């Protein structure tokens, strides 16, 4: 039983990280139906920039804030310089732009910062909590908490505020959105800025658990994307559940099946989920009619 809880805690921690990244994907998706493959780079910027600002003598909390701001600036730059000017580019073309941006950011990070890995101290110490005989780090609790709060805020924003609805409307039908007076350019820009901040926050939170380096965004971005898809694109709750499903699948596969094939098992599970829920667990489906 202890064993099970240990696997579960691992899955929850990792899953919450994936969820936090997935929320960034969903945010941009909600405003523009775009998949931003540079989302993982925001996570990288969050961690790396905090490390380097701190190394430059800035207090850690301030360094983290600056890192988040830097990610926002980068996100805004991607939107302004990459996405906004690309009129008439297909959906896949826009994805290629975000992939290009990711390569560019990664390249710059490797030059401006370095190609080493770096860690940050945890927020509340490293003394593990023991629950049901299994251990859990306080940092995990921080990650759960922040993820839950952000998911709640996003849910409130999209479900309850007109601004949130305007953001989704922009994605559903940009032409109609303009015709009802929504400044679609601003909406998409804001979604990028928020996603940048979210990604960077994730980076700040996970670096104490898993060191960051200039290429850390590749795999984290991939897992975050998978979480967003399994949960259903655009759904905050979906991002969380999707993240946890994948995190727990990985942990249980490593624990009970085969650690060598745990990633493969996780992806098999993702495929099964997609077959059963073709638009993700909480994704919109069936609104198309003729």
């Amino acid at each position, binding site marked *: 039983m202890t064993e099970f809880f240990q*696997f579960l805690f691992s899955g929850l*921690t990792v899953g919450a*990280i994936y969820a936090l990244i997935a929320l960034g994907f969903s945010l941009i998706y909600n405003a523009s139906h775009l998949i931003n493959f540079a989302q993982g780079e925001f996570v990288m910027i969050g961690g790396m920039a905090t490390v380097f600002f701190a190394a430059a003598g800035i207090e850690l909390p301030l360094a983290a804030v600056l890192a988040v701001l830097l990610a926002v600036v980068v996100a805004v730059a991607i939107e302004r310089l990459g996405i906004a000017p690309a009129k008439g580019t297909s959906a896949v073309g826009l994805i290629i732009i975000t992939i290009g941006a990711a390569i560019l950011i990664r390249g710059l990070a490797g030059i401006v910062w370095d190609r080493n890995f*770096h*860690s940050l101290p945890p927020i509340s110490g490293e003394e*593990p909590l023991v629950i049901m005989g299994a*251990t859990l780090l306080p940092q995990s609790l921080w990650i759960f908490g922040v993820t839950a709060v952000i998911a709640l805020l996003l849910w409130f924003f999209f479900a309850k505020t007109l601004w949130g609805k305007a953001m989704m409307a922009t994605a559903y039908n940009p032409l109609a959105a303009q015709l009802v007076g929504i400044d679609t350019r601003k909406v998409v820009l804001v979604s990028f800025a928020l996603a940048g901040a979210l990604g960077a926050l994730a980076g700040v939170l996970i670096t104490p658990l898993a060191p960051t*380096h200039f290429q850390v965004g590749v795999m984290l971005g991939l897992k975050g994307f998978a979480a967003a898809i399994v949960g259903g694109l655009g759904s905050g709750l979906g991002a969380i559940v999707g993240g946890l499903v994948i995190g727990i699948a*990985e942990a249980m596969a490593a624990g009970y099946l085969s650690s*060598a094939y745990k990633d493969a098992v996780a992806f098999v599970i993702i495929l099964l989920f997609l077959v059963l829920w073709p638009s993700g667990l909480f994704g919109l489906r069936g609104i198309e009619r003729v």
Partner: protein
Amino acid sequence: AEPIRIGSFLAVTGPAAFLGDPEKKTLELYVEKINAEGGVLGHPLELVLYDTGTSAKNAVTFVKRLLEQDRVDAIIGGTTTGETMAVIKLVEKAERPFISLAGASVIIDPVKKWVFKTPHTDRMAVEKVYADMKKEGVTEIGLIGGSGGFDKSCLKNAEELAGSYGLTIKATEQYGKGDTDMTPQLTKIRNAGVQAVLFCGFGAASTIVTKNYAQLGLEGRLYHNHGSCSKRFIEGAGAAAEGVRLPCAALVVADQLPEDDPQRAVGLAYIEAYEAAYGEEVSTFGGHAYDALFLLVGAIERAGGADPAAVRDALERTRNFIGVDGIFNMSPEDHLGLGPEAFKMLEVRGGNWKYLY
């Protein structure tokens, strides 16, 4: 005078960037230094260096480019075993001396006429660890490593060698690319009942495994292989790293070596130069590149020029070359020339390396 052209292909980016980056920096630093001091035999060195992105396919293309287009006199590179193995046929056919920076022993065993290497083999690292385990009275162990070539080669050697040191492997676990938590794997190892664990990997995973090990409160010592010989590891893992043992090149503890140890001076000089130039800590991987470059320079000097065949022969006759990885004595049967004594056993104590033996 005509420059002597040294070609290089390294994994400056991609999964092995952590290894390739210091290799690149080292080569660039010392080529510049050598040229500033008048070059080799009066010829300046010209370094042609390509980033493979840790891809064997790119390695092949770049080596062809080095051979055909850049017409280099010798090649240093191949950060990973895959990149190295993929190009061996090419350099053998082109008959150009080639010094690999990758770990696996297959590179030089069996011996290939034009191929040399500088890093200790991962087999040697495992042997060093196993010897220590045996000395500590350990008989049952667990293994954990990543899915990359470096990790898997270490795991494979560990499995093959265990018997000869009287060790039983109770559990072998793996983690995936970019994983952020390895507690499930370590839980399984713990449940298997082991007295010590060997970690086969490098980079961020070193830190994560060590922290998770402490979090779960595993008993018995955690050993790392030489992939963790970096101060970053201690910094990242913090208190969790205390008591970890691992085999490293002398370079890592150059300042703790006895005054009369010939490697001390070489190591300290390299550390000073590298850290002054880049403001970051040296790594043993950069050290492989250092040794490769100076082995090559020495051979060129002895050969009296860059003629490939002569340089190759001279390389093969390298005696008592004091590098940061150890003391090299090459022969037609041994294109590495390092003995197991090249590894030093270290332990993390008080947030620093402690040189044991």
